């Protein structure tokens, strides 16, 4: 039932929060961003092997713990609280879910099990200059088992071991596995607004590839991935927004001006109260979406509402945090801008607010249809 946390879920969250507070506080995200690595391999391994974050929503057959999107949302929220960078979203959520939804047991056996174990990183390459996630509009082509085209803003595309690439094949848009180190793969890291996450342009020049799942199945698989990743990102946005409120409330309780702590002034108090309300809404949308049955209209609705709401809400809360910190909030040293950068980057990741509002049209205005996902019941089974 929605919003009824089990004891296991509560313990999982508490354990993860403790670990991340000790090993990956925001100061660590800043340090990894400044030295350009963004990624802490020791933490990555421990998250995979000790906490089990990488297999939290993966069937036991592939080494996972067979949890649901609710557990995945918990991971997203907790990672969002500390601005954890590195390849979790790209590898576990985007690539992992694409593998699962592809219905390709051999590929899952070979790659998903290694993702779950923390031994493989992967990236999902879909967007192009002239196409977002609309598989039909993709320009990258597959000729036999060789791909040609240019993928933009590929999350962790420069460093991932494995690429999953969407391209036009003979039977329509399909997904392909490409070794990141293969000949014909040219990867160019881009400069990024959010320094905790790496984004690259990936050029495929007659690069060798293997078909993933059935030919022509990319649209349905990507729709599945978009929904689950939207829920993960929405939860991440809720976590980040919550920390913005918490750190600003801490500051407003201690910073003194005019002989009082500034939190006593209604101009400060009311802006912070609005941010708190907005954050509760962020949590509520992300959790509600996570609790719906994957593949259902409710799940589709939840993911769209969560992103349409949380994209703008997190940016606003991050802005409020800077405003209420005053000058100190505008400095490089203060963490507030790291949250604003993440908030803005998240708001463009896998669809803008406007894109997600438009996704509601089939359900609320009776125009268009809800896109299909593959074997909704089988994905998690």
């Amino acid at each position: 039932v929605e919003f009824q946390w089990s004891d296991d879920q509560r313990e999982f969250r508490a354990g993860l929060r403790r670990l991340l507070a000790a090993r990956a506080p925001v100061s660590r995200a800043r340090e990894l961003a400044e030295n350009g690595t963004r990624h802490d391999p020791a933490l990555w391994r421990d998250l995979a092997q000790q906490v089990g974050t990488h297999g939290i929503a993966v069937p036991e057959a592939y080494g996972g713990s067979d949890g649901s999107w609710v557990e995945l949302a918990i991971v997203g929220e907790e990672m969002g609280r500390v601005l954890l960078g590195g390849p979790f979203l790209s590898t576990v959520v985007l690539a992992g879910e694409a593998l699962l939804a592809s219905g390709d047991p051999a590929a899952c056996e070979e790659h998903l099990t290694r993702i779950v174990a923390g031994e493989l990183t992967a990236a999902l390459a879909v967007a192009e200059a002239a196409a977002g996630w609309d598989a039909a509009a993709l320009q990258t082509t597959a000729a036999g088992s060789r791909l040609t085209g240019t993928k933009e803003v590929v999350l962790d595309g420069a460093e991932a071991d494995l690429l999953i690439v969407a391209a036009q094949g003979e039977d329509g848009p399909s997904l392909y596995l490409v070794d990141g180190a293969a000949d014909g793969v040219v990867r160019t890291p881009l400069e990024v607004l959010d320094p905790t996450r790496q984004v690259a342009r990936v050029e495929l020049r007659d690069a060798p590839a293997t078909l993933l799942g059935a030919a022509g199945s990319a649209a349905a698989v990507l729709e599945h991935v978009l929904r689950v990743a939207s829920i993960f990102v929405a939860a991440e946005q809720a976590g980040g927004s919550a920390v913005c409120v918490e750190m600003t409330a801490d500051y407003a309780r201690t910073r003194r001006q005019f002989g009082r702590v500034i939190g006593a002034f209604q101009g400060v108090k009311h802006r912070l109260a609005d941010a708190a309300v907005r954050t509760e809404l962020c949590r509520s949308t992300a959790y509600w979406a996570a609790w719906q049955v994957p593949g259902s209209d409710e799940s589709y609705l939840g993911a769209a509402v969560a992103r349409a709401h949380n994209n703008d809400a997190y940016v606003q809360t991050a802005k409020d945090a800077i405003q209420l910190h005053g000058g100190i909030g505008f400095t490089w040293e203060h963490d507030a801008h790291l949250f604003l950068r993440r908030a803005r980057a998240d708001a463009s990741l896998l669809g803008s607010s406007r894109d997600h509002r438009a996704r509601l049209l089939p359900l609320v205005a009776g125009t268009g249809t809800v896109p299909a996902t593959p074997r909704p019941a089988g994905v998690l089974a």
Partner: protein
Amino acid sequence: MIALTDSTPPTQLAAAVHAFVEEHLPAAWLAAARADDWVTVTRLREDPDGSSEWWERLGAAGLATPTWPVEYGGLGVSADTAQVVKEALATYDAGRGDVDFISIALAGPTILAHGTPEQKERHLKAIALGKERWCQLFSEPGAGSDLAGLSTRAERQPDGGWLVNGQKVWSSYAHLADFGILMARSDPSLPKHRGITYFLCDMRAPGVEPRPLRQMNGDAEFNEVFLTDVLLPDSARVGEVGAGWAIGIATLMNERSGLSGRPGVGPGRADALLRRAQETGAWESPVVQDDLLALVVRERANQMMTVRAFAESGDAAPTAEGSVRKLANSTLLEDLATYGPEVEPYGGTAWSGELPQVTYDFLDMKKLSIAGGTSEIQRNIIGERLLGLPKDPDPEKDLPFEDRTRS
């Protein structure tokens, strides 16, 4: 009373309520509801000759107040179960309406939590059966947001009773009420929060005079209530002498929680506006589409938060968290009503025949951002109780009430 428990599956619960309604609802009402003739339903609801028997049957079955204990006219079930009942009744618009909100959501729970056994016996069943209607006598011309500044006096009489003098305002439906929940100052020598006592005031007692106030939307739901030498017995007192503030706050938390809408995620006011825009043709504009979708998103988000609040709080008493939902929902409803005229021909500013709904809603929109504690007061509550910010300064908080500056 019908047999409903928390272990009854929701579909069976709903089916039992539907069966009950179809057997007992007046035939004309049932027929009008089935024909989607809500104008007739509203007329029948508001006609006491036609509806009082139904309210009595509904109450006798425990369906008007399902969460209350069985001995006081309820079914003793959880809020979740009560919600299923409420939704089933809503299909026929056969549940108790806004006019009974104060009786059922505020007076009843306060009496249940703080009343004497005699008060519970005297009032709760009568509320459940629709035989008693209640109003709220809290706000005063000089005590709105600063409710603890109220100055209506309750003076102890030699026989132990109380003599009440003062003026209340914004009392919804006071002109129709049998009783009022009343906060009055019993000891002006104490600081303002400490000298208040809570009473159940008989609205028929000599000296009680409600005068309807015409509101900006044309309705006259609110009243001023003049209390002149009203004698109340000590048995009308709720809680200890001087304990009225805490009891009043509990009542207000019920109000904020109750004003925040019912749980469920689905088509709501924004969707209705979207339909209307499709009817009027305003929907053809992609700009209007995006505006309306943004309102749909906000309404669904608020619904998800309400579902979450109900799930996480269970049957616990309302807390400051109700302020979060009250603020979010009153702001959204205000924004929806502000946008409404955009989809209407001539912006709903000129019409023939009946007042358009969007125009009524436009004129009604500020109500919820003011009633039950203004949005500014809700922000104070959220800032102070949920975020731990210091309380707004009140230099007269600790002064004896009688020594404070008068406005």
